[in-house]
């Protein structure tokens, strides 16, 4: 029954042959799809470029003080650093090398050469990483009003660094080492320190507008290092375990599905589930209290179990102070509420689990409102405290009495917490509702609004503070949030 092992290209050719045999798209349909794709890319690209140019004009005109100019110069660098950190984090999340679960089951379990199966993915990932990193870095450099040649070299540098990181991440994936995890944390820490320096108005000379000559050298050196790492990565491909390759392949369709249905909470669920699957077990902590207080205690335990959420929240506190350095004035309240929401939404995981299905809620011998209230008490208090910790930044930005600014900061914390509750308690789009025609096919009317959940409450609570950053504005904002919270907690 056995003979020589088939070549990967033979297998691929066979699968391609089958697939081509069942293609049911006509040439006109393919051309029409291509036209829509190109047209959409051009329109969206033009819109993005327009936004960047306008922001560039605004920052150039409104930023004239020395501290603001220093901060703006540093932001170009920091944006670039953030871009490569994001690319590295995404690479680590997905593998970076991955295959679909079907390939994992039917091809990786055979004696086929794994390098041949995966090498195309290595090249593709490096190209995509370079493009994404370069685009993000170019945006940051353009917003910082760097000269055109500097923007060009910085963009190139970011792209090459991203290729290098993909190579390093692939080697690390095969060796199952901690290098990339440590590197991602280190980049995050460096970024944070940079933001702190800018916020403290002590921007080092290193973060000023770079000269072109050293940038050229950096691009050359990084390109050589990137090429070496790509070769090492190629030679490591056969050593990557099947589980590690399939893991990212299982994640990607879930994420794509969640984003395609504009269901960001589902996207969050997928990431959380993956995190806990990888962790596998935890140290047992016994419960305390009876009834709702037992749920409150469980929230305390959960916070202790996920200190990284608290660390991220604490680190994010630098952003309001950074906004002060940039002279954003009353817009500060928006920075506080949006940052608090973004960094603190992960505190409300229990609420998400209870809202996703009714099955768990039914297990508690308490009214649904009591269960939800018990689950949001501790994380809500943490976010309100976080808002209060931003009081000095609010005071610097708005001025006036400390008591007033304390009330505004308190309201900001309440707005962030309420928006997080709204986001976490959102329900998936209801496909039983009337459907409307769209280029994506028939979609329920609630689909488009599902992506706005959370942000709607943020706007509702932030507008009174923007219009009147006073005690009255804070009172109106908190009254609105109390009404929203009461609705969200008590609905069936």
């Amino acid at each position, binding site marked *: *029954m*056995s*003979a*020589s*092992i*088939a070549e990967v290209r*033979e*297998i691929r050719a*066979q*699968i391609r042959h*089958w*697939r081509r045999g*069942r293609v049911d798209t006509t040439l006109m349909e393919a051309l029409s799809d291509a036209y829509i794709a190109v047209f959409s890319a051009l329109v969206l690209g033009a819109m993005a470029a327009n936004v960047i140019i306008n922001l560039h004009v605004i920052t150039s005109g409104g930023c004239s003080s020395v501290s603001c100019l220093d901060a703006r110069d540093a932001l170009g660098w920091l944006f670039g650093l953030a871009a490569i950190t994001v690319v590295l984090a995404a690479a680590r999340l997905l593998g970076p090398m991955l295959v*679909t*679960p*079907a*390939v*994992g*089951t*039917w*091809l990786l*379990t*055979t*004696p*086929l050469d*794994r390098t041949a199966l995966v090498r195309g993915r290595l090249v593709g990932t490096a190209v995509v990483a370079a493009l994404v990193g370069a685009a993000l870095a170019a945006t940051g450099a353009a917003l910082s009003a760097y000269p055109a040649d500097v923007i060009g070299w910085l963009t190139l540098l970011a792209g090459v660094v991203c290729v290098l990181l993909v190579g390093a991440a692939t080697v690390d994936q095969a060796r199952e080492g901690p290098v990339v995890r440590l590197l991602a944390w280190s980049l995050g820490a460096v970024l944070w320190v940079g933001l702190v320096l800018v916020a403290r108005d002590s921007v080092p000379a290193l973060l000023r507008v770079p000269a072109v000559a050293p940038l050229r050298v950096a691009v050359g050196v990084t390109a050589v290092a990137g090429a070496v790492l790509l070769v090492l990565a190629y030679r490591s491909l*056969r*050593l*990557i*375990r*099947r*589980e590690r390759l*399939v893991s990212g392949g299982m994640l990607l369709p879930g994420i794509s599905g969640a984003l395609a249905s504009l269901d960001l909470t589902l996207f969050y669920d997928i990431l959380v589930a993956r995190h806990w699957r990888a*962790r*596998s*077990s*935890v*140290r047992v902590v016994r419960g305390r209290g009876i009834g709702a207080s037992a749920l409150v205690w469980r929230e305390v335990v959960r916070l202790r179990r996920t200190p990284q959420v608290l660390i991220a929240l604490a680190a994010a506190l630098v952003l309001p102070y950074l906004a002060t350095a940039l002279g954003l004035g009353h817009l500060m309240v928006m920075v506080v509420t949006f940052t608090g929401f973004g960094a603190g939404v992960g505190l409300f995981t229990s609420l998400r689990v209870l809202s996703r299905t009714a099955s768990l809620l039914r297990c508690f011998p308490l009214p649904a409102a009591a269960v939800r209230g018990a689950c949001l008490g501790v994380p809500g208090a943490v976010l309100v405290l976080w808002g209060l910790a931003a009081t000095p930044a609010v005071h610097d930005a708005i001025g006036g009495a400390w008591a007033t600014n304390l009330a505004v900061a308190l309201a900001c914390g309440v707005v962030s917490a309420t928006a997080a509750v709204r986001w976490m308690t959102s329900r998936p789009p209801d496909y039983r509702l009337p459907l409307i025609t769209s280029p994506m096919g028939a979609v329920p009317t609630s689909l488009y609004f599902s992506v706005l959940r959370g942000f709607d409450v943020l706007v509702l609570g932030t507008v009174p503070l923007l219009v009147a950053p006073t005690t009255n504005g804070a009172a109106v904002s908190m009254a609105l949030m109390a009404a929203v919270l009461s609705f969200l907690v008590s609905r069936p």
Partner: protein
Amino acid sequence: MSAPGRSSKTPPLLRVRGLTKKYGDVEVLSGVDLTVTAGKALALRGRNGAGKSTLLRCVTGVDAPTSGTVELDGEAVDERSVRVRRDLAIVLDDMDFFPDLSVVEHLDVFARAHGVADAEQVVDEVLAEVRLTPQAAQLPGTLSSGQKRRLALASAFVRPRRLLVLDEPEARLDQAGLVWLTERLLREKAAGLGILLASHDPDLVAAVADRVHDLDRPT
């Protein structure tokens, strides 16, 4: 397909020594020792959560044990090794499918990837055996869970193999499927293959297994 001799002095095909697996502080398996020789079947028995599937994942190199060794013909088992992939036919519970390849195409590509020269004939025979011939052109998404299970089992029989590792192969099979599975495993043994299976079906274990390893009992 090779069929090694079966004298009592034949070295074991698979040897597991002192295998321990921990998830964090939780010890799922503790010092497991077992051997499987060619032409013999060893069944793993244990309550839910006893560690049967974990043991099979470690034995097949899918998971790395915390300590201990797993050897196939005296060589450490690692699923990245081409030799291990060639000799071990594994059906665990993590089977996935190409959404756009039919039942017969799955088996065909699998057989060809294993270098089976007469792939078409072998695939047709095995398809008939698992009663999936009428579904040969169907996509996996349209199969029932029992049919998917039969397709997964079929994947083990369209390729060369020396050791079969099966995790609850009886799961989701109907009565006729159980009868077929029992007969097939007996034929595999007679052909000189080693079998390691985890099962909750006492009839299947009694009919097929030469020895039983109880994971509920301390080793």
